[in-house]
């Protein structure tokens, strides 16, 4: 599932480690999320959307589900 986490993170000039700390997850988890290799649970998806001030649909592309 593709998402815009990398772009949103770059816009804010945050490192992957910073995003990991803000979300309370491992940096390796941020890497997998950004790569679209791991689709987060609903709670984590909402946490990510709150962090970037976007809706879940604005971050995750529902049409890219493989």
């Amino acid at each position, binding site marked *: 599932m593709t998402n815009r986490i990398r772009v949103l993170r770059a816009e804010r000039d945050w490192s992957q480690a910073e995003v*990991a*700390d803000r979300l*309370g*997850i*491992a940096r*390796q*988890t941020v*890497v*997998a*999320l*950004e*790569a679209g*290799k*791991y689709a*987060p*649970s609903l709670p*984590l998806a909402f946490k990510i959307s709150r962090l970037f001030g976007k809706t879940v649909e604005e971050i995750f592309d529902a049409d890219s589900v493989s």
Partner: protein
Amino acid sequence: MKSSNPTAVANRRYVVEIVVCMLAYIAVLVPAMWLLNRGIEGPLKLVVAIAPVVPVAFVFLAVLRYFAATDEFQRRLMVESLAIAGGITALLAVTYGFLQNAGLPYLSAWWTYTAFMAAWLIARLFVSRNYDA
């Protein structure tokens, strides 16, 4: 500065607990082996013989605590690698069991533990690679 990221906290705690368990294992194992070599008998012999299992059980507890505290993706990596390791170990155990029927020497139960831990390590590397960017 130490981060308050719960996953980072879980990682640090896990490492500390594993190190403590390893030290406790050595601290129990050495006197237990010494006592056994001195030739103690009776029920005490069994108690001394299984004493090193206690710190090993605490390793299991540390793994469970880590599993409960880490993030959902790390948990998935753990579940997948443990499932694969369990399958590999079962397959190896059954295979060797049949080879024993064909006359190969009987191996100690220790080998299943060693095989499981080795399989877990290898499986973890492969599972992690599956999710790499």
